């Protein structure tokens, strides 16, 4: 039963299975195989394929596998700021420290990366009151799609990326 060579073969098969999975998951699925587009649709072959566009952008291990902030900051993409106007974005460079995070490291919210994409009015006062400490944010609400969860977990990096937000260790007494 426990012949050493059998372990070797099994380990080999396991490694291949794991590698195959990681390799496929790391790439962008063609539209025809995405379980959303109808493979018979005339749009297949006309619509741009995710791999064609996204493989050229700065990489990231989550979401679309694209670092969308770096893509703008490095000028790899220049998405329009208005339908017709070219007015600059209202960029804000400060950070907000959210200290009430239980056992997790504190959250350092960077206004800059958010205002590269969004206008102040997208979040304020609709989803976030413009006063530090005035927003009763918690992970349960975020997982339900409120507050940060409006975007994170849907179009911005997912909620499995804990440390990207919870990045400031608490000082030990």
């Amino acid at each position, binding site marked *: 039963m426990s012949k050493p060579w059998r372990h070797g073969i*099994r380990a080999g*098969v*396991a*490694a*291949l*299975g*794991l*590698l*195959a*999975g*990681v*390799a*496929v*998951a790391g*790439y*962008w*699925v063609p539209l025809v195989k*995405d*379980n*959303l*587009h*109808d493979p018979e*649709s*005339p*749009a*297949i072959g006309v*619509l*741009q394929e*995710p791999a064609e*566009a*996204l493989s050229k*952008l700065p990489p990231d291990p989550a*979401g*679309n596998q*694209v670092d*969308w902030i770096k893509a703008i900051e490095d000028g790899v*993409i220049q*998405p*329009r*700021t*208005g*339908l017709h106007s070219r007015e600059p*974005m209202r960029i804000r460079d400060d950070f907000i420290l959210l200290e009430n995070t239980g056992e997790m490291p504190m959250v350092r919210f960077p206004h800059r990366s958010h205002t*590269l*994409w*969004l*206008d102040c009015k*997208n979040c304020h006062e609709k989803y976030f009151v413009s006063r530090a400490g005035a927003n009763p944010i918690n992970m349960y609400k*975020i997982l*339900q*799609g409120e507050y940060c*969860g*409006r*975007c994170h*977990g*849907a*179009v911005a990096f*997912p*909620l*499995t990326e804990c440390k990207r937000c919870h990045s400031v260790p608490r000082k030990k007494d």
Partner: protein
Amino acid sequence: MGRWSGIALAGLLLAGSAGAEYGDVVLNRRAESEGMPPVIFPHWFHRIRFRCKVCHLELGFEMRAGSNDVTMQDIIDGKFCGACHNDEIAWGTENCDLCHSGRPGLETGIRGGHATKGPGVW
């Protein structure tokens, strides 16, 4: 199940989870009941070309899949998708198949979530 087969299975599950691109939205609140295939909206394609604020402020799209009651008449009148899809900025509404390209029976909502499968209400 042995240790090795468990690792292999984990790898294959990872492969099997691949599908919709992160942020893809299915719009089927009206489409199929009115005789057209569901619409697949790819966030990734649009955000390469437009900041979030253009659609989610200027065009008035709520940031919640399923909460935008968009009719084809709205689009033809230049609202919502029709602000760009007018043969000037992007293809016009005569190209039905390019947006209405979804499989039959898809439910409205946002897809392509990571391991959490996205927030519960989506």
